């Protein structure tokens, strides 16, 4: 993975930088190799890099001070939450400050009347739900890493989860943020009111992967937990029929709380791992969860059963108890470790496709398996078209890591080719950075980078991520004006 060339001037001035950082963040600067080691990678463990220094500020003022020092000294900054991200967004830079937000871990305000909770960025996703559970509330986005991942990272990555078709992703569930610019300014966007004013900067900060600002406070919207939830487990003898069923459910006006699909290799891996009770003689399995008032759930379950049978389902089981519902999910939620058990290594991809393209995409993946000699298991957020192919390989076998990377790139290009996108919820980071050209044209990426220039004209915040090439802002800002050379344009007019 090609990263920006470390700046020799910055490496040479490390001692001066450390002194200023220690003054600004007493007790929060880590500079010894052994202590920095845990920060050398994130959830994308194939890539590692020791940072120049790790700084763990305790409050917003210290974050702002670090940014000001970085700006003044021309040093890069890589923000980091819990480091669970799967696209390498928190991979350190050799000449950069690794800015960890883990000490900003307080829940600041719980406001039930306004259904809003304000937290610091280092609070975990699950801790928010736990803090309000006694009153029957929860925070809806539930990435599978929710026990460890933090809300700051969720905002940076615009995290989703299995319930996001119905309840939305992070961007749809936050009301306000405080963030620090690379200049060290502390800005607030939104609050507890619903609509932000002016340009929707909160919208672009969310999912900006640490390239625009450092989030230091988040106000999220909380919801009352649905009264009931029940799930249906449906088996099909082809993934086409499973896909048709998903389309028919949505066409019938039903938005399930969750709708997941697994293909045969994933079903078998999960079943071998923990005996979830999945049928083994099917090609595709759907888990459809309906939630809401009991009367509604009963009604919708019957509808989903009817639709599934009309689409030739070979097996159909409705959960009869909370225990059984959780058992249906247990296999799906354990799909990654289950695959990890049958293969020494695996790589998890994250494209989104129009659902109708699923049969083509699965067929082409079978071609890739033959071409590269690697197995692929698929789990699929079927409701929103977010596909997670797991590429099985053994890094100790020569050439397999490279082959897996090639298969991964081929799959993501395929997602774009059928009208989808490179990443549905894991982010671009470094992992998909060099594929951005496949989804976007030069002008598209240039305009995105210009937005970055408005926030960070010197490319100090998390450079080397998201964009395949870094262009200087001055260069991006140039505009050729054909003064006097343009005739009145030939456009219909009155």
């Amino acid at each position, binding site marked *: 993975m090609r990263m920006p060339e470390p700046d020799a001037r910055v490496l040479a001035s490390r001692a001066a930088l450390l002194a200023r950082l220690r003054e600004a963040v007493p007790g929060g600067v880590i500079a010894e190799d052994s202590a920095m080691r845990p920060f050398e990678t994130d959830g994308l463990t194939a890539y590692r890099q020791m940072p120049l220094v790790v700084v763990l500020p305790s409050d917003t003022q210290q974050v702002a001070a670090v940014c000001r020092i970085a700006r003044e000294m021309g040093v890069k900054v890589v923000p980091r939450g819990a480091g669970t991200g799967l696209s390498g967004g928190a991979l350190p830079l050799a000449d950069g400050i690794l800015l960890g937000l883990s000490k900003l871990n307080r829940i600041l305000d719980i406001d039930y009347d306004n259904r809003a909770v304000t937290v610091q960025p280092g609070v975990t996703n699950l801790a928010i739900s736990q803090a309000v559970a006694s009153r029957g509330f929860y925070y809806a986005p539930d990435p599978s890493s929710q026990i460890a991942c933090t809300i700051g990272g969720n905002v940076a990555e615009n995290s989703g989860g299995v319930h996001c078709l119905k309840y939305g992703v992070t961007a749809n569930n936050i009301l306000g943020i405080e963030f620090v610019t690379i200049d060290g300014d502390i800005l607030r966007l939104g609050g507890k*009111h619903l609509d932000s004013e002016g*340009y929707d900067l909160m919208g672009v900060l969310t999912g900006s992967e640490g390239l625009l600002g450092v989030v230091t406070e988040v106000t999220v919207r909380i919801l009352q937990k649905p009264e009931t939830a029940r799930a249906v487990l449906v088996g099909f003898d082809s993934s086409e029929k499973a896909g048709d069923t998903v389309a028919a459910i949505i066409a019938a006006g039903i938005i399930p709380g969750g709708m997941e699909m697994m293909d045969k290799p994933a079903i078998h891996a999960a079943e071998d791992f923990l005996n979830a009770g999945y049928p083994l003689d099917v090609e595709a399995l759907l888990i459809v969860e309906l939630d809401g008032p009991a009367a509604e759930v009963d009604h*919708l379950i019957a509808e989903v059963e009817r639709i599934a049978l009309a689409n030739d389902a070979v097996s159909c089981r409705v959960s009869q108890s909370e225990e059984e519902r959780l058992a249906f999910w247990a296999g799906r939620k354990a799909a990654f470790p289950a695959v990890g058990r049958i293969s020494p290594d695996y790589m998890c991809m994250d494209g989104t496709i129009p659902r*109708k393209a699923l049969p083509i995409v699965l067929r082409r993946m079978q071609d890739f398996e033959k071409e590269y000699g690697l197995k692929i298991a698929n789990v699929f957020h079927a409701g929103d078209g977010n596909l997670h192919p797991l590429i099985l390989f053994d890094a100790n076998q020569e050439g397999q890591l490279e082959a897996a990377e090639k298969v991964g790139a081929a799959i993501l290009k395929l997602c774009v080719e059928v009208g989808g996108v490179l990443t549905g919820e894991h982010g671009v980071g470094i992992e998909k950075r060099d594929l951005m050209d496949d989804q976007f044209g030069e002008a598209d990426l*240039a305009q995105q980078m210009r937005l970055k220039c408005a926030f960070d004209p010197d490319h100090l915040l998390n450079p080397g991520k998201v964009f395949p090439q870094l262009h200087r802002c001055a260069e991006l*800002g140039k505009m050729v004006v054909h003064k006097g050379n343009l005739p009145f*344009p030939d*456009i219909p007019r009155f």
Partner: protein
Amino acid sequence: MTTFTPETDAQVIDAVRWAVAEGQPLEIVGQGSKRGLGRPVQAAHTLDLSRLSGVVSYEPEELVLVVRPGTPMLEVEALLGSQGQCLAFEAPDYAPLWGGQAGEGTVGGLVAAGLSGPRRLKAGAARDHVLGVTAVSGRAELFRAGGKVVKNVTGYDLPKLLTGSHGTLGVMTEIVLKALPAPPLTRTLVLAGIDAAAGVKAMADAMGSPAEVASAAWVPAELPFTGIPPRTPSVLLRLEGVDVSVDARLAGLTRLLEGRAATAVLDNDESAALWEELRDATPFAQRPDLVVWRLSVTPGEGAAVLERVRQAIPGTVGWLDWAGGLVWLGIPPGDAQAGLVRGALSGNGHATLFRAPDPVRAAVPVFQPQPKPLADLSARVKAQFDPAGVLNPGRMGG
């Protein structure tokens, strides 16, 4: 004074390129139904997108609708309705509020203004339903952002940025929207005879219950609404879904709020009429003399903000939507009283001067002034999209 009416992306690019070269700003319009919103634009030339119109693709099973910006809203809603779907954020029709005809307006205007109706409380805002855009920047370059799928984190979320940017960052030439199933049935629980403060508390309790309230409003004695007893301040709670579910939730909600006020239930048709009036601010469309403000505040503060303005500006009438988080104010004609209205916010939320004569909107900041670092950042964003300032200059102030 030229009006360009492009029919292709290339013609939009040409028009903007000309504007940049000649230093001639453009006012970007669809049907012009929202010209009454924002600061009047100072531009001699008009870029009229009404002929950049039509549905590019609609796939109900994918929940994705792709349209050209000049497509009339009536056409968009009829198409979605034919498949039992809708724009869940509930597009308002404010044309009559600004003196136009009901049903005027384009989908491009809706997205550019970033407007959402009463269901915004539960379903999210317009910005939450714009999945992708193609636009021509003020650099006369066509760019795409977002995608045509419902879940996507690839690159910056420029579709959100362009939504609500009032045509000041780019001229949208294609918009990808998330379509969702339309609710099959709506009923409204009315609590009749309840003041604003108690009403806000009742709405908070309703929103904190598992009843999945889709919209919650409080209306005053002074303004008429369908289905509400005359001269009776009331709370309105809208429930949507399949009948068994609506009935069960209605029963639960009625038990929860028993004793707060007299309760009544409006059926589907009356509910539809009532929420349309709230959505379109119809009582103020019927009172063209009033200056109208629209305030976004912490929901629990809605009643207090309304009361503060009523104290400060005699003759003010208003209602609360979004469980108290949206305050509609009509103040007597004349000065917009921006200082008093914005003062009543106590630094919490923001106020938009939603309807006032052009000279008033030219003189008073229509949108809430921002703290300097934020205003500077917004200006830098604008400059990155439209360095020559040719797209709707001044519309958002500044």
